[in-house]
């Protein structure tokens, strides 16, 4: 299936004198992490199917600097930000879509003060707009009646108040959206934020991702859905830790949509 992926870069677009409707910011996880790459591809499949004119930066993309900033390294963050802003501004990027809430938050909230002003949307918001405008339709009831629990990524939900778009999408799948006892503004972190992804946890009596997976499993879900590559990894590990990988899947919203469409 991957041979059918059409992924133009901004440089190629520029060479043809074209400006895409939206720039897809892939992010480090989406570019390099094996699990997250699947999310990237699923999202591209949908973009291709919906005939969205988009482009990626490809090798010109660099880390947004989010993990550096959360770790406290403002220098490194700002250097990354300024380099990225230079590239983005050179391409006159206007609208950016990304499947990573950390990139989303940083690009949207922290780049403007450094000279990067873009309209930034999370892929769940973008997918919803495609459905709402009829550019994308979902058929096929692969998820009909399945119990899907949605985990709110902190940097999407609490940090930026995006709660409804991912939920609307799940409901469009004819699936049964189930809520964990801690959700939306009261959601519990998956444990990866604040650069925790890159280090061992401090001593405690439990891993945060296990605690969160327990919240999710309490809802007796068939699928745990997330909208963040980091949450995805944390919850997948949590499900493994609970030895439930046989009957509970962790999937990104983009993967749900791509699978429902059977692209």
């Amino acid at each position, binding site marked *: 299936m*991957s041979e059918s*992926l059409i*992924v133009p*870069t901004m440089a190629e677009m520029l060479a043809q004198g074209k400006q895409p409707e939206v720039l897809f910011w892939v992010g*480090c996880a989406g*570019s*390099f992490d094996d699990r997250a*790459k699947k999310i990237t*591809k699923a999202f591209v499949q949908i973009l291709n199917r919906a005939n969205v004119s988009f482009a*990626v930066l*490809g*090798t010109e*993309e*660099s880390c947004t600097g989010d*993990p*550096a*900033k*959360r*770790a*406290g*390294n*403002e*220098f*490194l963050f*700002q*250097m*990354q930000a*300024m380099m990225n802003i230079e590239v983005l501004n050179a391409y006159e990027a206007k609208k950016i879509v990304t499947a990573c809430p950390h990139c989303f*938050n940083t690009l949207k*909230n*922290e780049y403007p*003060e*450094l000279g990067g002003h873009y309209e930034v949307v999370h892929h769940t918001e973008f997918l919803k707009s495609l459905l709402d405008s009829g550019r994308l339709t979902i058929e096929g009831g692969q998820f009909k009646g399945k119990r899907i629990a949605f985990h709110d990524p*902190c940097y999407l939900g*609490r*940090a*930026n108040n995006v709660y409804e778009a991912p939920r609307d999408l799940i409901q469009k799948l004819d699936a049964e959206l189930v809520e964990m006892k801690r959700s939306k*503004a*009261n*959601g*519990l*972190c998956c*444990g990866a*934020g*604040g*650069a*925790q992804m*890159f*280090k*061992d*946890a*401090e*001593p*405690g*009596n*439990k*891993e*945060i991702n*296990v*605690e969160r997976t327990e919240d999710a499993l309490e809802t007796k879900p068939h699928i745990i859905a997330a909208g963040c590559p980091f949450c995805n990894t944390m919850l997948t590990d949590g499900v493994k830790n609970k030895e439930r990988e046989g009957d509970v899947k962790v999937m990104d919203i983009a993967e749900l949509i791509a699978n429902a469409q059977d692209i």
Partner: protein
Amino acid sequence: MTYLSNVLFAIVLIIGFGYFYLNIKKIIRNINLGIAVNRTDNAKARWRNMAMIALGQSKMVKRPVAGILHIIVYVGFIIINIELLEIIIDGLFGTHRIFAPIGVIYDVLIGSFEILALLVLVAVSVFWIRRNIVKLKRFFNPDLKGFPKSDANYILYFEMFLMTLFLLMNASDLHLQNIPGGFSHFIKAGSFPVSQFIAPAFNGMSNELVMLLNEGFWWLHIVGILVFMNYLYFSKHLHILLAFPNTYFANLNPQGQFDNLASVTAEVKLMMDPNADPFAAAPVSENATPSKFGASDIQDLNWVQLLNAYTCTECGRCTSSCPANQTGKLLSPRKIMMDTRDRIEEVGRNIDANKGVFIPDNKTLLNDYITPEELWACTSCNACVEECPVNISPLSIIMDMRRYLVMEKSAAPMPINAMMTNIENNGAPWQYSQQDRLNWKNEN
């Protein structure tokens, strides 16, 4: 004789308010030890925040039991303080129930004060039970020990004491009002839906004794209020005043947006400018304050963060929602706030003792109060910020201290250093080459 008591009352009043004023001044001075940030933009949103969150307690009711009880105590306290005005006038001028002539309205007022006083007594008792018998977990975390733990109970006892005195005062008054033919200055005024049931307790006592008791209750009540007011400074109860400015000056940006360090921006721009002379010393402006990146002590925090520390009610809602704390890590956002306040107070005492200047005491907020282990446990998830009923951000202090650890001390945990090196060299937190960023396109 009455003259004497008026003068005595005036003196008590002056001492009470005078001491209060001095302590408020001290708080303002201490808060101003923090660095300047501008929080005066968007006044409309700020007033709205204050009206909704401080006055309307919109975030309190997220936990309905505590929320509703708290509203009763709060409304009761505010409204009963209207009564304080009458007490002060009566005390200064030797009058008795000066507002009585307003008639029916007066009856309604006194009646509703009484009902509120009773409700407050009930609410405060439930709070006491939750704390001391049910033992709610967030009141028994290890970060809450010693004075902060008893502080909460003292406040509850205070409220019980004041409300009981208020009712006893009214009950004895009612008893004297009902003496046939009238007794002394006890005119018939007010309505007493609650204390009418206490009044019979005075039956059989001599009129003079009841009058003496009434006067005693009156004095204890007013002195109690003054003492309580001055206790605030030493207590987490300061929030009944500071919740208002604190919600007004709270951060209005999206929670995920961390502040931009302008001092860093200047240096990064210089570093990235291809025309800049790499060997030239960084331009030093005449009055540039020696800049320090991040915070190791309270003087490096901004004044809003210091105001936050004074406002913290130690309710522990932040800690009970913190993922790190819930999984047994050392981090407690409540402790971050309490430590910050303790350190501000310590610095304040140092300044007082040294005629207005701070003499370094070889201590800092970092290490002496807050350890790096606590700081590194934070996932920056904003759960604590979301949960705080008075819009405090423990996270902003955590982040500023991490910045100090990383940028001034290069003291990040090893894997974090590795992550940062990777970003520097490869533009990704992992060791992959930037040239491979698009490889996924052709992989299966």
